[in-house]
C-alpha cells in the first residue's frame, strides 16, 4: 500500500502549466500494446493525485487479432478533473495512437484542435495498408485540423531500454510505459506509484521491471526537455473537491464482488457463486474465485443452467446462492429462477448486460435486459430487480440485493453492464463492519412448523435448513398448500398462493428508500429518468443544463422492481418525463404501464455509453417544443 503523501512528485513548474478543469485522454493500439495496463496505471496515479475520474475500457471482440488490423484495436479512455466527473467523456482531448489502425478507428471521435500523439515508428507502409490507409495519414490532410505530436516512440523506447538485455520484441513492449511517462509529464502526474507497481508486478523479472521504469522515465524526460511545439505544453489539473475519507479506485467487477461478500457477511452467510464464463460477466467469477479466505466458494459450472441450479442448491442448504452471467446466459437460467420463485429461496442473479440480441456485440455495453429481468419468466413469477449505476455503486447495490433476497426469501436480479464491470472510478472505502446488519435467522422451531409458514409483515416463508432435526420437510416446484406446504392442486389455493407471492414482492416497495430526485427538484419541468450506467452521462448533462439555468432534473432509479412507493407522485410533478436508456425503451414501458405517465424515450443502442450532448439536445428539444 502506498499513499499519495509518501510518493508525491512535485512539478516545480506548475506556474508555467496551463490549468485545466478536466481532461479526456484516450489510448488506442493493438491488444498487444498494453493499452489497458497503461490506462489502469494512469487511473491509479490520477486518483492518487486527488482528481475525480471515470474510465472506459473498450475491448476488441477478438482475443488477439493479427497485429495492426482495425478490428484488433483496443482502447482505454479516462476523464479526470478538478470537478466531479460523471462519465469517461464525450470526446477525447487527447488521443494516443500506437499504430495506424488505432488512428484510423479513433480519429473520427476527435474534435478539431485536439491533441494527437502518434508513434511514427509504427507507421510503416505495411501497417498503414493493414489499417486501410492508402496514403500516409501523417502526410496527407487527415490530421490537418489537429495538434499532432509525432514521435518515433518505438525507436526512443528501444534506446531507453537498451542496457537491459531484452530481446527486440520485449524491448518494444515497453513502448506503452515510455508513452505513459510522456503523458505523466504532460499532466503533472506522479510516476512513483507506477514504478512501485512495476516493481511488485515484475518482482520475479527485475530486468523487465527496470526496463519499463527506464522507459517511463525516458518518456517523462522527453516531455521535460523536448520542444513539443508551440501549442503543447504541460498541463495541470487541480484536485477535485471530494468527500473526505480513504479512497481507492475500483472497477465494477471488484465492487460487485466485494459488495456480495459484504452482503453475505452482514447476513451471516457463506457465499456460493455458480457461474459459467461469459463476457463481460466472467470478471465477477474471477474476482470471487480469489476471495476464498472469506468463505467464498466458486463453482465454474458446465453451463448457465447448472450454475444457477448449483446456487439454488446452495441456498437450500443455507448459503447465499449467487449466479452471474450476461443476457444469453441469463436466458438459460429463467426456468430455474422460476423454481427459486416457487420454492421461495434466496438467490442473487447478476446480469452484466452486453449488446444483443443473441451473441450481438459481446464486448460492447447495453442495458437491454430489463424486460428479461422484470418479465422474462413463464407464469406469474415476480422478482425484485435492482441496478447499479456506476462501478462504485455496484458495492452498495449488491449489499441491498442480498438484503432483499434473504429477508424476503426471493431471487433478486442485480443488473450491471459491460461498462460498469470494466470501468473504474475512485471509491470512498466504506467501513463494512459498521454497515447495518441484516442477519438471517434460520428456523429451528418444530412447533407448528411447515416450510411455507410466512412472516406476517414481509410474507417471507421460513428458512429451515436440511440438517436440522425435527424440521424434515420436502419442497419443490409444484404448487403448495398455503396452510401445510404440501402439494396442492386446489384451485382457490393456487389463486391465493399466486397472489401472496405477488404481494410479497410488491410489499418490498415499502421497505426501500423513497425515490429521490438525484439532481434538481420536483419544481423542474423535465425529468430525465435513468437507471444503471447511464447515471454518469445523464447526471453530467443535467448538471450542465442546470448551470445554464434550464429547469431539468435527474431521477436515477436503483429499485426497478418493485418501484419505490412514491414514484407515481414524483413523476406526475413533471411536465416531461424523458427516459434515457441504452435500449429501445424498456424502463419507459414499465413506467407507462405502472403510472400511465406519458414518458418519452431517448434511446441509444450503439454499444457505447450515451454522450452528454445527446441528452442535452433531447432535453433542449423538449423544453423548446
Amino acid at each position, binding site marked *: *500500500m502506498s499513499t499519495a503523501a509518501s510518493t508525491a512528485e512535485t512539478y516545480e513548474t506548475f506556474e508555467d502549466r496551463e490549468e485545466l478543469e478536466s481532461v479526456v485522454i484516450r489510448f488506442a493500439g493493438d491488444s498487444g500494446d498494453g493499452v489497458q495496463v497503461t490506462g489502469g496505471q494512469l487511473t491509479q496515479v490520477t486518483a492518487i493525485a486527488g482528481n475525480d475520474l471515470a474510465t472506459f475500457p473498450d475491448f476488441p471482440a477478438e482475443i488477439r487479432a493479427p497485429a495492426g488490423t482495425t478490428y484488433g484495436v483496443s482502447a482505454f479512455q479516462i476523464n479526470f478533473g478538478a470537478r466531479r466527473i460523471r462519465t469517461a467523456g464525450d470526446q477525447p482531448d487527447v488521443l494516443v495512437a500506437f499504430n495506424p489502425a488505432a488512428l484510423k478507428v479513433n480519429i473520427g471521435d476527435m474534435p478539431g484542435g485536439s491533441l494527437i500523439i502518434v508513434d511514427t515508428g509504427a507507421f510503416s507502409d505495411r501497417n498503414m495498408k493493414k489499417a486501410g490507409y492508402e496514403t500516409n495519414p501523417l502526410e496527407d490532410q487527415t490530421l490537418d485540423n489537429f495538434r499532432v505530436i509525432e514521435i518515433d516512440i518505438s525507436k526512443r523506447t528501444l534506446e531507453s531500454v537498451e542496457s537491459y538485455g531484452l530481446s527486440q520484441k520485449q524491448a518494444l513492449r515497453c513502448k506503452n510505459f515510455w508513452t505513459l511517462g510522456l503523458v505523466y509529464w504532460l499532466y503533472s502526474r506522479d510516476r512513483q506509484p507506477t514504478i512501485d507497481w512495476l516493481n511488485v508486478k515484475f518482482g520475479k523479472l527485475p530486468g523487465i521491471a527496470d526496463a519499463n521504469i527506464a522507459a517511463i522515465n525516458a518518456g517523462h524526460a522527453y516531455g521535460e526537455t523536448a520542444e513539443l511545439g508551440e501549442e503543447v505544453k504541460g498541463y495541470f489539473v487541480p484536485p477535485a473537491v471530494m468527500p473526505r475519507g480513504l479512497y*481507492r479506485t475500483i472497477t465494477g467487477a471488484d465492487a460487485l464482488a*466485494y459488495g456480495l461478500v459484504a452482503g453475505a457477511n452482514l447476513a451471516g452467510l457463506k457465499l456460493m457463486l455458480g457461474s459459467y464464463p461469459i463476457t463481460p460477466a466472467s470478471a465477477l467469477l474471477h474476482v470471487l474465485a480469489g476471495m476464498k479466505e472469506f468463505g467464498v*466458494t466458486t463453482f465454474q459450472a458446465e453451463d448457465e443452467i447448472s450454475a444457477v*441450479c448449483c446456487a439454488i442448491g446452495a441456498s437450500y442448504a443455507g448459503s447465499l446462492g449467487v449466479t452471474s452471467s450476461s443476457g444469453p446466459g441469463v436466458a438459460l437460467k429463467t426456468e430455474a429462477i422460476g423454481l427459486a420463485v416457487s420454492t421461495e429461496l434466496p438467490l442473487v442473479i447478476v446480469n452484466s448486460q452486453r449488446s444483443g440480441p443473441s451473441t450481438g456485440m459481446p464486448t460492447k455495453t447495453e442495458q437491454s435486459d430489463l424486460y428479461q429481468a422484470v418479465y422474462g419468466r413463464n407464469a406469474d413469477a415476480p422478482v425484485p430487480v435492482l441496478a447499479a449505476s456506476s462501478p462504485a455503486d455496484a458495492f452498495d447495490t449488491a449489499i441491498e440485493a442480498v438484503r432483499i433476497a434473504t429477508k424476503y426469501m426471493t431471487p433478486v436480479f442485480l443488473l450491471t453492464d459491460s461498462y460498469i464491470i470494466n470501468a473504474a472510478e475512485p471509491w470512498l472505502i466504506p467501513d463494512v463492519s459498521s454497515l447495518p446488519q441484516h442477519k438471517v435467522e434460520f428456523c429451528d422451531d418444530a412447533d407448528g412448523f411447515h416450510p411455507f409458514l410466512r412472516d406476517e409483515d414481509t410474507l417471507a416463508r421460513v428458512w429451515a435448513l436440511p440438517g436440522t432435526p425435527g424440521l424434515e420437510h*420436502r*419442497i419443490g416446484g409444484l404448487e403448495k398448500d398455503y396452510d401445510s406446504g404440501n402439494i396442492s392442486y386446489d384451485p382457490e389455493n393456487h389463486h391465493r398462493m399466486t397472489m401472496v407471492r405477488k404481494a410479497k414482492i410488491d410489499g418490498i416497495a415499502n421497505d426501500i428508500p423513497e425515490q429521490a430526485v438525484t439532481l434538481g427538484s420536483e419544481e423542474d419541468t423535465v425529468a430525465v429518468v435513468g437507471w444503471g450506467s447511464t447515471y454518469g452521462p445523464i447526471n453530467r448533462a443535467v448538471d450542465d443544463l442546470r448551470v445554464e439555468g434550464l429547469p431539468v432534473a435527474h431521477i436515477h432509479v436503483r429499485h426497478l422492481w418493485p418501484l419505490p412507493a412514491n414514484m407515481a407522485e414524483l413523476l406526475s410533478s413533471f411536465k416531461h418525463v424523458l427516459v434515457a436508456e441504452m435500449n429501445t425503451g424498456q424502463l419507459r414501458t414499465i413506467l407507462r404501464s405502472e403510472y400511465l405517465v406519458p414518458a418519452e424515450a431517448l434511446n441509444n443502442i450503439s454499444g457505447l455509453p450515451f454522450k452528454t450532448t445527446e441528452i442535452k439536445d433531447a432535453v433542449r428539444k423538449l423544453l423548446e417544443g
Partner: protein
Amino acid sequence: MNVATKIDPLKAKDFASDQEVRWCPGCGDYAIIKAMQKTLADIGATRESTVFVSGIGCAARFPYYMSTYGFHTIHGRAAAISTGIKLANPNLDIWVASGDGDSLSIGGNHLLHLLRRNVNLQYLLFNNEIYGLTKGQYSPTSRMGTRSPSTPLGSVESPISACEFALGSGARFVARGVDTQQKHLPGVFQRAWEHQGTSFVEILQNCIVYNDDVFAEFTAKDIAQDRQVHVMHGEPMIFGANEDKGLRVDAESLQLEVVTLGENGISESDILVHDETNPTLARMLATMEAPEYPVALGVLYCDPAETYDASVLAQVQEAKDRLPEADLDEYLRRGHTWTV
C-alpha cells in the same frame, strides 16, 4: 456418504413420510422405495442429515415419500442442484432419484459433469426405458422400434446404455440393480453409500402402464438366473440356474464370451474373476445384453478417487488457514489508496 450416528437406529418404516404414495399400482417404484427405506435403516441413517433430491418424472416424486429432507426440483437438474447442496453443506448425505429421461435426456450434461467431478453423493437412475409422467413417449434408453405416442411407427434411435455412458463420463462407481430384487438392491444401495464420490446406480424399473415387462427378457422368473450375472469383486463370474455358466474373455477379439462349466474342458479356474477396479472389464460388463449375454448386476466398477467437494472445500480451507484473520475491511484497503 457420511458417518451416521448409530444411537437409537430408525427402522425402515420410520423413513416413510406422511404423504400418500401416488405411483400407479404395480409400479416398480414401490419396490425401490422399500429397498431404500430398508437401506437407510441398515446403515443407521438419520432423517435430518439425509436429503433426497430429484428432477421431474414419476421417479422424481421419490422425495415426497421419504421422511427425510427432500427437494423435488426441475426436470434434469437434480445433479446440478445436489452439487450446490453438497458444496454448501458437505455433512448432508445426498441421494438423487431420477428417471431415464430426467437423467439421460434433458439432464445428460449435468450427469456427465457430476460423474466427472465426482461429487460425493449417490445417484439413482430409475430406468424404465420410457417417459412415464408425460404418458409414455420413448426415452433415450428405449429400444429401437419402440412404438409410443411420439413414434407411432416405432423409434429409430439407438438407445444409450446408462452404465456405459456413466463409465465414458468418468464415473468411479457404477452399479446396477433390478427394482424387485429386494434381497439384492439394499446391498447395492449400501455399497453406493459407502463409496466416497459419485455412486451411480442404474435401477431397472418396470413401468407397468407404459412399458410393462420391458425387462422380462431377463427378469422373468423362469429365465432370470440364466440371463443375469450378479458380479462380486474377487469372485468368478458364474451364473445360471445350475451355476454352470460363466464369463471369459477372448484375448484375440477382446470380447466376453459365455462358457459352460464342464463343457469343452472348462472349469471354474477358466472363468473370469470380477475386478471392480478394472475399467475395461466394467465397460464390457455394462454393455452385455440379453439374450446373448447375461445382464450384469451388482457393482460393475468401483475405483475411488478424490471427491470434488473435498477438493473444493480444501482449497477454501487452505485459503482461510493461510489468512486466518482475513478481514474484509482490511482487504478493501489493500493496494493503492489515498486520503482526501
